[in-house]
């Protein structure tokens, strides 16, 4: 960090009520005389008008390359300042100080002054990030799986100008969908059996000059990173290597274990079949006179296929009725999940004479007697005289390749991370007890699809029930392996029409990832960030904490030296590695252990006779900081002794900072991050969990320093906790005042 010649200047905003609440002369003195910033300028607004023009001119002329703007929160006016050529550092004295503290008060003034001290220290210890490489990188897409999802992905990418390699394990394209004689309607008016268009899609793909298809091929191994995935394609005629910018996994689904259907009579008769087997009969024109189709309830067929199953049952029932209007078809269900526009399809079947029967199936006998508990009558009703009994099956996501052996290393990646069976409602703030103890979840069988040569293992890690997503509500395509996206039923159970659309979404993300990595920019959620972690290997102890804790598997170990090696375009720039490193040798140009330590140290700690405690708050900038801002927007009073440092993710907080603060004489430390564990809300998936784990050990440090454990607290703050955050800080302040001052105070 030496080359960069800092030319800082402080821009003290006097607008927005700041001037009315604070002594600006004093703040200017702190910035210049005390912190040594050569100059401080003042204006009624630096976001617009003359103030902004001054700021812009200073930076464009090169006189200033670090603007320390003292005023509002970085969450506002960012659009204005992003245009400035140079580093912009924001000291928040509006939302955080003027709006949460009484005006013209000694403590308010001290808080504002400290925020400026911290910003100046930040400037002194950071510099603008630079892109990590300028090598050309691949913009070719690898699609794994040649079913509807994979075929659609390949075509959509090609239509966008992208070159594609499509790899299919079997000897033919089309996947399951090629086996269905008729399909479910996927567009308005959402009725009527549809012709299967797979053959046309296959033809389009085969004729597409942008697409190269490899059948009978699987992926031997994949190394590298977005923009540079080096992949081995393995087939009967030998291996080949190719390089890809990003990867779409569209490996679809597999049939569930039919042994799990035995309680529904499966195996007792050739005429008790799965819906998959029944598709073949329908295709062959083998139409029954009477049929019962049992929609298997979800709890029997995890993971969650009953929505698709319901539509399949309706489709198959309609196919029978169309072939023979006099046929008798019963669809037996517990919950009829014809959700959304499928309601029309359901209605169509009812009108065609299909009988929908709600009730639990009690038994299915070898002579095709189906006994259903009829809820309406409250009795078990046997149905007899059936020609066929169809049982819907589940779609098990092909997150693994079932045909190859499980990799030794993959187990953790394939365990359910969430305990999906946990009751949800918290009564009296108490965590509910798990109703079952199968908390560990099952490990999916099978080997890796891509066989990633990553330190953390060959799989794409999965969450509950084998799906690889990470924030599937808001960011459905994100996985924990950068540049690798999933689409189709490997992501969630879906129909053909849904899978086609899903492929479009995945293609967009894949192209975007290639583009970003091509420009050395981070992808979601720190989109466009150029900073990346650098490793000072001279003091690295090869402890491997960084390689193990990175939530995205971005760091490998050098096979020869065992030192950590970053794969920059896999990195999401969360800083979890930095927080993990016991010797603090990982740093970003604009975010590093030293910078934050200096910020912590820059705060003026009043001596013990002043009886003014100091509370350090390190808060996640994605959720806790906005919540704090909003507490300010609502003008909620917050503890006047807090000093706040935003962190990229709680995972980036190192114990060094906690230690520094305690040594400097802070009286309490509060860490605020997102919810971890089941239903985590952390944007970096594991960051806050890692931090909590780390901080659980801080008690020992405190004890060794003869201090109370309560001085350091970790809390979970959601963005909506705009009331709670004030209450939490206030009550923590009381706790600290109760404990008395830090004995280390000078």
């Amino acid at each position, binding site marked *: 960090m030496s080359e960069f010649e800092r030319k800082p200047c402080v821009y003290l905003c006097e607008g927005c009520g700041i001037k009315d609440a604070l002594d600006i002369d004093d703040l200017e003195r702190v910035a210049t005389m005390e912190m040594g910033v050569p100059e401080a300028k003042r204006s009624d607004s630096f976001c*617009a008008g003359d103030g902004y023009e001054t700021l812009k001119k200073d930076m464009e002329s090169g006189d200033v390359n*670090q603007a320390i703007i003292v005023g509002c929160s970085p969450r506002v006016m960012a659009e204005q300042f992003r245009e400035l050529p140079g580093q912009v550092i924001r000291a928040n004295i509006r939302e955080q100080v003027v709006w949460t503290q009484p005006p013209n008060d000694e403590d308010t003034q001290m808080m504002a002054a400290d925020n400026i001290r911290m910003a100046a220290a930040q400037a002194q210890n950071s510099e603008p990030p630079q*892109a990590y490489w300028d090598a050309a990188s691949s913009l070719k897409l690898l699609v794994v799986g040649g079913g509807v999802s994979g075929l659609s992905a390949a075509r959509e990418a090609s239509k966008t100008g992208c070159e594609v390699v499509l790899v299919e394990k079997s000897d033919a394209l089309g996947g399951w969908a090629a086996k269905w004689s008729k399909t479910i309607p996927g567009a308005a008016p959402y009725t009527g059996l549809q012709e299967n268009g797979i053959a046309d899609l296959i033809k389009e793909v085969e004729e597409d000059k942008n697409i190269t298809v490899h059948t009978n091929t699987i992926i031997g191994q994949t190394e590298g990173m977005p923009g540079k995935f080096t992949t081995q394609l393995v087939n009967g*005629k030998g291996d080949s290597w190719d390089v890809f910018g990003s990867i779409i996994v569209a490996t679809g689904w597999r049939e569930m274990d039919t042994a799990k259907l035995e309680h529904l009579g499966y195996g007792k008769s050739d005429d008790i079949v799965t819906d998959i087997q029944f598709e073949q009969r329908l295709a062959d024109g083998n139409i029954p006179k009477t049929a019962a189709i049992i929609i298997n309830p979800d709890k029997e067929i995890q993971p969650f296929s009953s929505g698709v199953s319901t539509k399949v049952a309706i489709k198959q029932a309609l196919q029978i009725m169309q072939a023979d209007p006099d046929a008798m078809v019963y669809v037996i269900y517990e919950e009829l999940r014809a959700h959304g526009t499928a309601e029309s399809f359901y209605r169509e079947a009812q009108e065609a004479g299909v009988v929908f029967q709600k009730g639990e199936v009690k038994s299915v006998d070898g002579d095709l007697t189906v006994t259903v508990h009829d809820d309406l009558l409250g009795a078990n009703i046997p149905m007899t005289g059936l020609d066929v009994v169809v049982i819907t099956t589940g779609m098990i996501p092909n997150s693994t390749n079932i045909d190859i052996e499980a990799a030794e290393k993959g187990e953790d990646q394939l365990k359910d991370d969430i305990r999906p069976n946990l009751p949800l*409602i918290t009564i009296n703030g108490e965590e509910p007890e798990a109703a079952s103890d199968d908390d560990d979840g099952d490990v999916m069988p099978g080997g890796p699809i891509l066989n990633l040569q990553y330190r953390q293992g060959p799989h794409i890690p999965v969450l509950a029930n084998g799906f690889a997503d990470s924030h599937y509500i808001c960011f459905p395509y994100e996985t924990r392996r950068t540049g690798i996206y999933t689409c189709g039923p490997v992501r969630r159970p879906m129909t053909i029409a849904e899978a086609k659309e899903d492929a479009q979404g995945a293609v967009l993300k894949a192209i975007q990832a290639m583009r970003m990595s091509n420009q050395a920019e981070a992808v979601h*959620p720190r989109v466009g960030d150029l900073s990346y972690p650098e490793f000072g290997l001279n003091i690295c102890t090869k402890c491997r904490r960084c390689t193990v804790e990175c939530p995205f598997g971005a760091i490998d170990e050098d096979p020869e030296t065992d030192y950590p090696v970053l794969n920059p375009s896999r990195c999401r720039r969360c800083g979890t590695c930095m927080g993990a490193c016991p010797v603090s040798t990982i740093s970003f140009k604009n975010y590093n252990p030293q910078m934050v330590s200096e910020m912590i140290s820059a705060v003026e700690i009043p001596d013990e006779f002043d009886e003014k405690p100091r509370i350090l708050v390190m808060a996640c900038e994605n959720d806790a900081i906005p919540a704090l801002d*909003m507490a300010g927007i609502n003008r909620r009073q917050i503890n006047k002794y807090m000093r706040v440092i935003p962190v990229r993710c709680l995972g980036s907080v190192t114990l060094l900072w906690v230690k520094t603060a305690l040594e400097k004489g802070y009286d309490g430390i509060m860490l605020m991050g997102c*919810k971890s564990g089941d239903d985590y809300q952390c944007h970096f998936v594991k960051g806050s969990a890692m931090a909590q784990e780390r901080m659980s050990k801080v008690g020992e440090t405190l004890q060794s320093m003869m201090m109370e454990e309560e001085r350091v607290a970790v809390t979970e703050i959601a963005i909506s906790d705009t009331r709670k955050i004030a209450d939490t800080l206030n009550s923590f302040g009381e706790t600290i005042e109760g404990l008395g001052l830090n004995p280390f105070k000078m």
Partner: protein
Amino acid sequence: MVDDKNKSDKPDEVDEEEDEFAAFEREAKAAAAAAAAKMAEGKKAAETAQASASPAAVVEEDDEEEDEFAAFEREAREAAAAAQANMGGGASGSEAAASTSQASEAAAGEEAPAGDDDKQAAPVSDANAEAKAKALEKSEKAAKKQAKALFSDNVGVASQTILVVGGGIAGVTAATEAAETGYDVILLEKGPALGGRVTRLNRYFPKLCNPNCGLEINYQRIRKNPRIKVMTMCEVAGVSGDKGNYTVSVSKQPTYVNGMCDGCGKCADATDAKVPNDYNYGMDKISAAHLPHEHAYPMAYVVDPSIKGSDDEEKLVAACPKGLIDFGQETENFDLNVGAIIWATGWQPYDASKIEVYSYDYSPDIINNVEMERLANHDGPTGGEVKRPSNGEPAKKVALIQCAGSRDQNHLAYCSMICCLASLKHAAYVREQYPDSTVDIYYIDIRAHDKMSNFYERIRYDENVNFIKSKPGHIDIGEDGRPVLCGERTIDREIYREPYDLVVLATGMEASLANNAPEGVKQDEYGFVIDDGGQFAAGTAGGPFDVALSTQSATAAALKAIQAVRAGK
């Protein structure tokens, strides 16, 4: 192009083919196992005799064209350099790279720890290494051509700008995804802030996380991205033209606050006038000069039109330190020229007054499901406590009525997909607040689709949440003013007349454009937008979806729009 070297079209060769396949599968397994071993032991895979370096050539190379693409490469580098310069960095990318290589030098310089023979480097398979190196080299050459094909600007359409109409979760997603893929986007929003319906939800099912969490990330993306232009208070009046060249007429309503409001709030202090709070569906009042809500993006105040011409007019004008308040603002009409349009206009709750038997208009204690979200929200009319709107007492006996207006040929013929799940969530809100509460859910089917079925199971653990299969016939108002549900249970045919503290109607989703679509949009019979090659639907503008499906469809819509504006190629 099909690489058919493994494919045989002679049927009699099938068996042979299968053997061959089995053989390669064995090989693949071996390779995978070897890789796993390598990972586990941290050493290079042993050299395999069979490993053959087949040509990595997949794409035909076109050396002649290379020069043509050199230009693109330069552009890409320039862009990267500009990005650096923008950050104020003087050093070039290679210098940055140098620092990394210094680090690896440091690494190489250190001796491997003694006795750790595990870590000793085994020779890499030469064949593999060679093949990999070749592939990489080839890829580097191809990259230029690929980049040109993907991102070249010269496509001969009049406008490559993508217009996104509607700033809810789908619109925000479509806009950011398209912009981050390198296209210019205009994001139009009718209201004063982004976020649409979801910003007014208390929690998302099934994680019970607050929607502003995901929105905040998206707003960060917007704040950083100069390709996205956000325009609030704007509505589309009509569309003409064709893919690649649409003219969109827009009308912009006044907020009486010009430009650069910095959210200081002085205007709000200057008036005592209160207006119904739209953010809380009118369940409470807010200052006539207000921030739309605490999480509003853009964070700019708006002044209610009722102030115009009142005594407070001058006070407000005087109060703004930046002099931004201007009652001279009028509705503005203007045209935009764009290449593709994404309709992300979303949905509205089906008007509960139309289901007359449910007496929505006759009791304040009969509310719809979006109002329930506000009632439970920390920023709602009750500060997050679920209270009876009539008297402010805790609502401890609550009924949730499913399919209020959906699955009904007289109202919405389709199933709205989300209302079952929303009600499960509402049960959680009430149960968490009051340990002695009960919640009765009246339903036809609980449609917890795919991953949501777990959510259903998790709520079902609670004994105080009762699932009653029945569609209530009507709601009476009892003598004590409480709503009384009347109907017959489907299962045991029992007639009930049950009073409740609060009744929530799980109203369905109606397309926003169902009754007032601008000229030039294609719609289905329900008013959902249909793709036509240049105009696309994202989220619930295209059908009843939950958020996960909306963000998915929005991402797909971004791709479709990009394909449309590249159409000239």
